[in-house]
């Protein structure tokens, strides 16, 4: 098992190295940034069973925090990254405390509701956020540790920084889901009632998962703020929240690599098709529907199937319920 994990990790690093030479470095950076956010959502959605439709709250809050720190204080890179992560985590702790009191659709709508409120504040508080015009003029500080200082001005160098941040985030996330904590999260997803009966404080663990995810999402938001020198208002809008949800779903939930593939596919598809045909969302929609109807395990399952065909076994019969997605709907639907 350890060898399999190692090979997967090596493969991931190889993909990260190759990525900016296959797609533009800018797109590659964005893929990595959204992969972090998708990975964070996967922790609460895929591993703990809570679908948040409001991750842009933490993404955007951290992006604004970082932007303001860099504009007004010329704060250094790592300080900004730490601050944004902290802001994401604290905001998620506050908002999450309220949201996790409810489950199912009510939980989703609470996360969405808070997202809308913060969007509104960002929209109206133009003196601080620039409102609809976005927060412009954000510098990209160099990567500086002690006497070492590396400029990140070129797209490729910035990608390097984003990629390293991504790998660190991935490693941290892997440690979390492999730890006893991860096991508890999964137990809560499978059956919250049983987890409680065994003696776990379900709400507290949900809260913890939500907070951790908020911190990761905040980190992604900071990286995003430095991409184009502007924090656009969309960064805190529900459109981004929705995109993150769909990335996770496309990739396949409840497994570490799914959200990464989902983020890559979602971003790359929308970039590649939009250049070819201005009605690109149509193709995206058709792809989504086909995936849902015929390839429910997401891209991870696609790989598995290709592997099986290559191995000569022919396609597997499709299970009614993919193993990665337990039918927790009934238990979720009631508060």
């Amino acid at each position, binding site marked *: 098992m350890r060898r*399999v994990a190692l*090979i997967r990790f090596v*493969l991931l690093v190889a*993909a990260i190295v*190759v*990525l900016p*030479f*296959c*797609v*533009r*470095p*800018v*797109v590659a950076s*964005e893929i990595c940034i959204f992969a972090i956010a998708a990975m964070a959502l996967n922790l609460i959605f895929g591993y703990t069973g809570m679908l948040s439709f409001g991750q842009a709250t933490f993404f955007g809050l951290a992006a604004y925090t970082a932007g303001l720190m860099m504009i007004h204080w010329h704060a250094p890179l790592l300080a900004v990254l730490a601050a944004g992560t902290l802001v994401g985590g604290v905001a998620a702790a506050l908002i999450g405390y309220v949201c996790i009191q409810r489950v199912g659709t009510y939980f989703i709508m609470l996360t969405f509701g808070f997202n809308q409120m913060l969007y509104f504040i960002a*929209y109206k508080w133009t003196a601080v956020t620039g*409102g*609809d*015009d*976005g927060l*412009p*003029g954000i510098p990209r500080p160099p990567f500086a540790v002690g006497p070492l200082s590396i400029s990140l001005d070129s*797209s490729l160098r910035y990608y390097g920084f984003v990629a390293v941040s991504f790998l660190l985030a991935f490693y941290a996330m892997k440690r979390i889901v492999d730890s006893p904590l991860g096991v508890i999260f999964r137990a809560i997803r499978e059956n919250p009632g049983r987890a409680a009966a065994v003696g776990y404080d379900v709400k507290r663990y949900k809260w913890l998962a939500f907070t951790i995810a908020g911190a990761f999402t905040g980190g992604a938001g900071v990286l995003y703020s430095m*991409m*184009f*020198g*502007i924090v*656009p*208002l*969309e*960064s805190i809008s529900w*459109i981004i929240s929705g995109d993150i949800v769909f990335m996770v779903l496309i990739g396949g939930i409840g497994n570490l690599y799914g959200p990464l593939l989902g983020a890559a596919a979602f971003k*790359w598809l929308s*970039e*590649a098709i*939009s*250049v070819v045909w*201005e*009605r*690109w*969302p149509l193709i995206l929609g058709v792809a989504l529907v086909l995936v849902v109807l015929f390839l429910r395990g997401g891209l991870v399952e696609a*790989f598995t199937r*290709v*592997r099986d065909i*290559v*191995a000569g076994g022919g396609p597997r019969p499709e299970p009614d319920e993919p193993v990665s997605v337990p039918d927790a709907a009934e238990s979720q639907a009631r508060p």
Partner: protein
Amino acid sequence: MSTITRRRFLEATGVAAASVLASPALVRAQGKELVMLGIWPFTGAFADVGPLPDRGMKLAIEEWGNKVIGRPIKYITRDDETKASSATRRMEEAIDSENAKVVIGPWSSGIALACTEVAKRRKVFYYFSGGTEDIAGKRCHRYAFNWAASPYTAMHVVVDNYMKLNPSHKRWYLFVNDYAFGWSVEKYTREAGQHHGIEFVGSDRMPLGTREYSGFVSKAAAAKPDVLCLLNAGQDVLVSIREAHNFGLAPKVAIVNSWGVGTEDFLQLDPKTRENFWVGTNAYYGANTPVAKKMVELYQAKYNAPPGYAPCAAYGMTRLTLRAIEKAGSAEPADIVKALEGWETQDWPGKLSVNAKTHQTVRDYFLLRCKKPDQMKHQFDFADIVAVSSQPLMPDSLNECKDIGSL
């Protein structure tokens, strides 16, 4: 899984993934050709607008025979999705992958303010036409130019000439879209209004894309204005006009859309709802100059309807850029910038000049009065041009572009 199957799996998926991912990279920029990027909204809130400037830009490039100073022109477009994040990302991507040196667009002022940052950082030539004063103001830099009239001049042309014809209409009510564009035009409408003793009896700010204007119209009706002044954009203009008629406010009360697109809006409005409707605009197809007439003829032959502000602006910006490239004998952004700075010339819509200190184009602005249905001679005979003027100029003291910076 066995080692062999794993390796074969990795090979197979690796090859597949590489071929899928690599395809955009195959389109590499070619040496001699000049890449011009039109960044327009094909999806999102301004999705309806995108195809129009696209037509205008194409028209100008075709008129040049797809080449300038002996170099073939490659025209590419990107969808900004009416989102600043997508616009900047795709603009940057086009600069990287296609080596775009000239960027024109987008449509929304808010998004333009994001794009101008990219132009500044990547040192590409950037042309925009819109109502925010900041492109040639607070956020000015050497590589960015604004083609539209300055909101100061535009609002004065509208208010001064409207008041000349309707001196008793002193009660104005404002609908303002709450973003860069709306703030600029509101500021200068109020400024121009002071000179005529206009009382602003109320104003509401609403987000772009508001679909329910009934509440605002009820409020406006309660304030008993003489003029309902629309400082909004896109479909918001049409929705507010329709509601004003539904509520019986118009045509009794005049509607003045101070910064309008003209033709495209007219085409979408029932002739009855165009009664007592006044529009200030950067481009009307009735403009009586050789450049405008020729362009309108070409456009109408191709698309069966006269062009409105959007295609004219894209055409005008592209045309002026191409002429500046010819003047400079170079397509390097810095040379185009220098060729444009301080240039006085004849182009769309007529005589114009480019302020070297602010990069604001000094050009004519139109005030139109729509015709009643029975006065129209043909289906496109929408309006009379009641005023065309490039005056008054914005006083230097008001412009926030104090230092345009270096190349």
